């Protein structure tokens, strides 16, 4: 079997007495959409922060493309092909969407330490950025500073930035939150398209979307993975039903 793109083993992190992540084992395989579901406070966002390197784990390991990355800084993991969208949009208010995407593209195009050449002259860069913005449906709003964008548009831009990093592993923390029906549908279609190109970890509350999109689903409750399987297996799993899907025994 092909080695998974991302593997965590026994990944744990506590905050005081609370075990936000407690021995989490997850694999993300090439080409799959792996959904992570669970009630609020289950530790899903903590898991994403651990994997992306925003916070350090207490114990456990993270392997990206077969290499241990548990102690590497966020920037190094990004350089190895990990991209993440934030649950709450993290953007620069005065910069346009186009500028955000261009900046993200520089990662694989010589970096940012170039002081003289005007960035506006780099037409190849701009064309590629516009292509990505078109893909998320943001092209017509590309030159408006982020401060003037709606909540849903900022969410779309988050996805565009993540795509511009040309990731092998994409971590999406509730990408559809606050997007509206049309935006959600477009994003679902986009994720479907991207499925073959990279491994995607999707945290999402809308079960319909999850069951429609995900190849595999892991259910997290109280910091632990209680079940992993395809949509059918998860639907019929008794533990999941009692713990999460709301069918009280």
């Amino acid at each position, binding site marked *: 079997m092909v080695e998974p793109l991302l593997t965590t083993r026994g990944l744990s992190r506590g905050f005081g007495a609370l075990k936000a992540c407690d021995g989490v084992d997850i694999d993300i395989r090439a080409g799959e959409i792996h959904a992570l579901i669970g009630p609020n406070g289950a530790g899903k966002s903590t898991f994403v922060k651990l994997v992306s390197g925003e916070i350090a784990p207490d114990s456990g390991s993270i392997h990206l493309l077969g290499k241990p990355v548990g102690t590497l800084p966020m920037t190094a993991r990004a350089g190895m092909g990990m991209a993440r969208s934030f649950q709450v949009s993290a953007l620069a208010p*005065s910069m346009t969407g186009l500028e955000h995407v261009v900046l993200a593209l520089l990662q694989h195009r010589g970096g940012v330490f170039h002081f003289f050449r005007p960035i506006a002259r780099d037409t190849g860069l701009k064309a590629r950025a516009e292509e990505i913005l078109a893909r998320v449906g943001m092209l017509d709003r590309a030159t408006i500073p982020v401060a003037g964008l709606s909540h849903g548009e900022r969410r779309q831009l988050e996805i565009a930035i993540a795509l511009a990093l040309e990731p092998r592993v994409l971590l999406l923390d509730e990408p559809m939150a606050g997007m509206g029906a049309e935006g959600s549908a477009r994003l679902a279609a986009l994720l479907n398209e991207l499925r073959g190109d990279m491994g995607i970890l999707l945290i999402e509350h809308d079960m319909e979307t999850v069951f429609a999109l995900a190849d595999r689903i892991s259910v997290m409750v109280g910091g632990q993975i209680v079940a992993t399987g395809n949509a059918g297996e998860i639907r019929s799993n008794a533990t999941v039903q009692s713990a999460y899907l709301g069918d009280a025994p």
Partner: protein
Amino acid sequence: MRSDMIFTLAAMAALLAAGLYGYLGDEPFFLTLAAKAAIFALAGAGLNIALGYGGLVSLGHAAFFGIGGYAAGILASHARNYEPLMSWPVELAGTTSAPLIWIVAMLAAGLFSLPMGLLSLRTGGVYFIMITLAFAQMLYYFAVSWPAYGGEDGLSFYVRNELGGLSTMDPWSWFLICYAILAVALVFIAVLTRSRFGLALTMARENPLRLGNIGVAPRRVLLTAFVISAIVTGLAGALYADLNRFVSPSMLSWHMSGEIMVFVILGGVGRLGGPVAGACVFILLEQVLGGFTEYWQFLLGVALIVIVLMGSGGLAGLFERTGVRKAAAHG
């Protein structure tokens, strides 16, 4: 961006007009003031890279201003006294060549800013202000207590340093030299802010977490900006020493840091032409109000409060808003 450019050109035109007035009216004192304004504008433009574009509130830029000044003073005084700077392990002589002095001043300021930036960037907010301040004060007290170069009394040298065949003691030539250097520096900053680095610097200021997330360490970007900022302010220090033919520890004091910050805030933080307008208005107020009363700095304080309360962006911000209103009225 366009209004910033118009404002910058207007401020530079006003400064040139002031110089021309001094030249044609044969008022060397006026010309010297104009040269001083150009030098202060350059110091402010340096700080603006850190403060305006990088969001780094440095209260230690007097360190770079003073280092530039002492670099000029020390090199020149050695050359004039025919004493080598050092004789071991290599013999190194002083110099009165202005371009060489400028390069040394910029290098020295840049080198000092590196450890200063590395340490202070580990912190943020008010701690960043305090650490930059502490670094500058450290140098200040060192200069006061170091007798070799005049200590507290400062160091004077009698003739300005040399630049090709130009007569640097002629106020008009000297003004033009300072003005030209300021113009080159502003062009450099304009280019810098439009480059890849400029884009990353904006992101480092507004959302460092996101910058890290797309694979760029924000601290490296900010440190680079801090060093560039120090180099520009260091060059201004060298020119200031030449202007007065004198350097003293006061160039290193936190009072100087505050003054440089006033140029930037008065003129417009993060606006290319902000420091130019700020320095010109500062010197104008100093002369005009100083003529009425010894307590002109009190009135300067009042002016600063009014401008800050009227909204961000200082004079440049005011210009932008009136421009927008006019455009709206016409449209």
